């Protein structure tokens, strides 16, 4: 479960192929023009962002929230659900009281 070790990022400005790979991960249709425009932009932004590696050694504990609280939990008590029709009314396609989607090709996980 360990992640691969840290990479030197500046050595790898994003190529168009990598942009396409990331777009696939993000389920984002991009045109060839989009890709051509994004590759240098993303490279520039990431190169700028890469500065974060100049400080904060591994012994600095990452911070996500300012207050170090833990165990925020609720009791196992039921709460009201939503009316089905109200939720389904927002769906682009709903049939037989369910959300409808086109054919699913691959099972992901």
């Amino acid at each position, binding site marked *: 479960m360990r*992640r*691969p070790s*840290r*990479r030197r*990022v500046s050595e790898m400005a*994003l190529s168009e192929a*990598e*942009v396409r790979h*990331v*777009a*696939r*991960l*993000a*389920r*984002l*249709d*991009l045109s060839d023009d*989009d890709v051509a425009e*994004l590759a240098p*932009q*993303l490279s520039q*932004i*990431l190169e*700028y*962002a*890469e*500065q*974060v*590696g*100049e*400080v*904060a*050694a*591994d012994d*600095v*504990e*990452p*911070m*996500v*929230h*300012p*207050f170090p*609280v833990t165990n*925020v939990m*609720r009791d196992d008590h039921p709460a009201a659900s*939503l*009316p089905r029709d*109200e*939720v389904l009314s*927002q*769906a*682009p*396609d709903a049939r037989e009281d369910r*959300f409808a*989607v*086109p*054919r*699913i*090709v*691959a099972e992901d996980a």
Partner: protein
Amino acid sequence: MTSDLLTDTAAGLAARMAAREVSAREVVDAHLDRIEATDGDGTSDTDVHAFLTVVADTARRHADDVDQRRVTGRDLGPLAGVPLALKDLFTMRGAPTTVGSRILEGWVPPYDATVTEKLRAADVIVLGKTNMDEFAMGSSTENSAYGPTRNPWDLGRVPGGSSGGSAAAVAALQAPLSLGTDTGGSIRQPAALCGLVGSKPTYGAVSRYGMVAFASSLDQAGPFARSVTDAALLQSVIQGHDPRDSTSIDPVRVGRDLPDLLADLDAGVEGLTIGVVTELQGEGYEPGVLAAFEDSLRRFEALGATVVEASIPHASYGLPAYYLVAPSEASSNLARFDGVRYGLRVDAPTAEEMNAATRGAGFGPEVRRRIMIGTHALSSGYYDAFYNQASRVRRLIANDFATAFEQVDVLVSPTSPSVAFPLGDKTDDPLAMYLNDVATVPASLAGVPAVSVPNGRGAEGLPTGLQVMGPLLGDDRCFRVARALEADLGLDPVPSGANAVAPA
């Protein structure tokens, strides 16, 4: 009479309604008329275009209801009957929420945000939903899928962003109050550019439940107003622990109450130590912005405060850290917009293709850019160098603030490096646009509260803002310092200038 209702403060209107000098219905009608007269649909360059949706009928009904309850002697809150403009990112039943995006076009949320509930409980009357940079990603409101909002001080310029619609609505006298959200400066920067008071509360002081998420560990809702008192009043209404938001501050767990924002509001700055953040001034800041800032520092000293140099040594790493943390979280938060449960769908033969086509068509360029940055930054092999490392930098910046607050009561800086810039000026250069957030991002990363208060005029007579940053849960102190400067300056909050919105 009408123009006087429009220029009055929220506190002033509330007092007049309480004294039955004017009804909530009259106040609401005056503001709806003003919206009608000035807002337009964004197609003309004289349109402010602050609103995406106006809920006139609901607002009028609510106003009548408030008036009726007041007649029957019912106890009403301190802002009862006061109109408000709500950023189009808070869910509210019965009205669409678009977040400035095509991908949510037509979505009518099935539930109310906690903030929306609190507004209703306080009888604050929502006039409508305001324009914003798509998914709150931007600093000019030009990234809205529904056209830009214009700055009421100069209709050729941007109002700032991402809460530009909420800022412009209050500056244009369309509402005395509005709510925005601030992830890296999205309340403070437009407040500065529109000559308003804007506050980003301590992270967790206001519930995020029902706020369409941009970056969960940074997002906070906060007020815009034309006076510090109004902003503090509104923040008092919306703050408080919410069990539906695990990151909302629970006084029992944190061991401290949320601050009373009004008790010491007018206590002045005498005896306080104000730290000037060395790293957040100088190069990159416009001369007019720096001049106004220097003037404010002299005023603080004259008012009895001790002004000292202070340091947030890692401040310059704030922007790069922010532009990793925020897009990373956003890339995941925005994954749910896939054409299955709500919003836009672009048809395609398979679910995968439908997802990708919908997202490709539904998200604008800046949102796509950030999803791409964030997806890459979280991907295998990069996580540690990017998200994790940026989170370490957050810790350093938070520590810097904690250390500084051992010496000073508040920290100050200019809110924005520039006054409002012309529409289209920075749209071709994402990184130049990101630099707008340089002064606001450190407080966001640390989670500390910060208030922007108008502190004079810079280039072209346009407003400038001063940012007051406090320690965690020191929101009251930020408002108090802002109030002292506001009182000393006595600026007129109504837009003026050659290209300003028509006067009320």
